[in-house]
């Protein structure tokens, strides 16, 4: 098969995949008697049409950046980590334990401590599948799926029997101390001006105390952490020896062995980092938003990480962009659920289709593109 230009491979292939996914979703909508255009406009309006919409979109994006990076880093080492969901849930447990049982002087210190706990718990949950892969050749995809289920069961037990406060009916931990609350976008200087509320007269709304009122949004300081993490992953993969070894191992295992790179070390390190990143997403949803540990706190973000990594071509910058796209899809989907009769599950369909087209039917997309390109070339030649 002829080769595609690099830019087409990097940008056009995911874009076309996305368009195909959107097309199929539109067909589904038409089949169930809904208007795809209306759906799109509601989604755009709900997710991007207002500052508060963005506040949600970026909140979701933050989680997806972390899980997407987790998948990415494992991918570069040639490992498909499907266990992001379980690792994120365990990360949440780490955050909860750190926030509930350690005395933190200030939220900044707590943030560092909770991040460490989240990463540690996430990594620990990835460690066993990693070890089994490295030492016993157990297929990491299957073991990580199994570990997702084991994680869910473990959390149900811990939340139901251990962390649930006396008298509470939710399978959830107690609330974290209020001082540990992370600053949200509407609470940060400068940034908060975007979230000012306006009255019907167009003037800034004031509270009873005469202070301006802001729309509350869940997006919080973790968003910036996720960007730092993305940058860190980029540095790691392309500017450190470890990253070099991981990529070499992922691309060509035999050549990596020739170069003296230890398979065991790479599998372990890549999976631990992957798990740690997935675990870190708990800072966003558990510490930054819910401020307590809920059952099923990750809410599928671990799986969305797969779509985000595929869509983002396993590059941190691509992951950030794809995460924002999926944040849009998520928030837009919620808007659909709120404002139309289209079920929120539409976003699950789109998500699945994006994974399908970018991850499994990419060869088909490429064949289509190559065909278009060769047509263009013959035209030019003629």
């Amino acid at each position, binding site marked *: 098969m002829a080769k595609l230009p690099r830019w087409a491979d990097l940008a056009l292939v995911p874009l076309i995949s996305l368009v195909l996914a959107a097309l199929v979703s539109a067909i589904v909508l038409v089949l169930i008697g809904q208007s795809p255009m209306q759906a799109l406009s509601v989604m755009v309006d709900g997710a991007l049409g207002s500052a508060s919409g963005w506040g949600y979109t970026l909140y979701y994006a933050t989680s997806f950046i972390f899980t997407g990076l987790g998948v990415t880093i494992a991918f570069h080492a040639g490992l498909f980590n499907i266990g992001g969901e379980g690792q994120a849930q365990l990360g949440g447990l780490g955050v909860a334990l750190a926030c509930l049982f350690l005395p933190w002087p200030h939220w900044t210190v707590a943030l560092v401590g909770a991040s460490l706990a989240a990463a540690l718990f996430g990594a620990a949950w990835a460690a066993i599948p990693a070890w089994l892969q490295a030492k016993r050749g157990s297929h990491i995809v299957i073991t990580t799926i*199994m570990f997702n289920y084991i994680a869910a069961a473990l959390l149900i*037990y811990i939340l139901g029997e251990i962390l649930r406060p006396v008298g509470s009916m939710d399978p959830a931990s107690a609330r974290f101390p209020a001082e540990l609350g992370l600053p949200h976008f509407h609470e940060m200087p400068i940034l908060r001006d975007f979230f000012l509320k306006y009255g019907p007269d167009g003037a800034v709304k004031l509270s009873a105390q005469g202070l301006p009122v802001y729309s509350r949004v869940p997006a919080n300081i973790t968003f910036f952490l996720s960007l730092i993490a993305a940058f860190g992953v980029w540095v790691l993969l392309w500017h450190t020896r470890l990253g070099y070894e991981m990529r070499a191992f992922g691309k060509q295992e035999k050549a990596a062995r020739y170069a003296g790179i230890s398979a065991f070390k790479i599998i372990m390190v890549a999976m631990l980092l992957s798990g740690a990143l997935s675990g870190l997403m708990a800072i966003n949803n558990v510490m930054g938003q819910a401020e307590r540990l809920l059952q099923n706190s990750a809410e599928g973000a671990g799986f969305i990480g797969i779509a985000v990594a595929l869509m983002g071509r396993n590059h941190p910058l691509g992951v950030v962009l794809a995460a924002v796209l999926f944040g849009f899809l998520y928030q837009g989907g919620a808007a659909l659920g709120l404002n139309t009769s289209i079920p929120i599950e539409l976003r699950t369909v789109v998500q699945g289709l994006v*994974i399908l087209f970018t991850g499994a039917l990419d060869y088909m997309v490429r064949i289509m593109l190559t065909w278009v390109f060769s047509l263009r070339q013959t035209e030019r030649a003629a």
Partner: protein
Amino acid sequence: MDYATLLQILDSTIRLGTPLLLACLAGLYSERSGIFDIGLEGKMLAAAMASGAVAALTGNVWLGLLAGIAASMIFALIHGLASITFRGNQLISGVALNFVASGITVLIAQSLFGQGGRTPPLEGAARFNPITLPFAEQVQGVPVIGPLYYEVISGHPILAYIAFLAVPVTWWLLYRTRFGLRLRAVGENPAAVDTAGISVTGLRYAAVAITGLLCGIAGAYMATALQAGFGREMTAGRGYIALAALIFAKWRPWQALMATMLFGLFQALALRPDVIEGIAGIKIPSAALDALPYVLTVLALAGFVGKATPPRAGGEPYVKER
């Protein structure tokens, strides 16, 4: 634990194990042909929705079954297209199709019935009802065997009997027929099959289609026999448990029966904390029982309970010319 309780638990095991068995055998065909399929869950779900919806609309459960099989087959063929024709990543394709199924079933059911993604409750001919096997009533009085026959063996819907029948049929097909020989070969070494003059693609599509068929029955069982209608996410991870059972069974039919019934037993026991407490003497959290199939599967994968070697060519697209 008294005999009646035992019978009740076994009865429950069969009911809960049947969809696992069907899905597990479904996975067996695909994986034996070298196509990994983690999309059993999605296929079952799609089939459950389609069968529930069509049965509700037509009042005829057999039409529902056909619709369920058709829906599952469509998903199976998309998986085949991605992994056989377009040499895509089989794992990613499976994950993707699970997502699509999870969403699209609710979209369709909601648009058809407007009941929050459920189908209306099925009644009468819109549902597979339990059938009483011959002489069940008569032998009921015979000690030990009688109640066993009456309570446990008799009184399941026809699909359950089909599922159990599928075990020897699969065994026979796999080990006693030309098709089986070729199927097993193509999952181990497609080049051997190719040089023997048999189409690798054709065989693999056939296998994937059988997977679709069996997942279709599994889904229909869920919606029209075990339950009286479809509800969102009603398969609740059974596709993954079936996958786990398949690994635990080391891709063999009789062992698949054992594994799925074992996992069904875990599910049945998880519903009877009183019984477990009676046997174990301590309170075992039901979460532990829920997790047990997965833990066992990890142990099997790690080679601690006999090595689970998947078909050698599994997961790899067959590419002749680089």
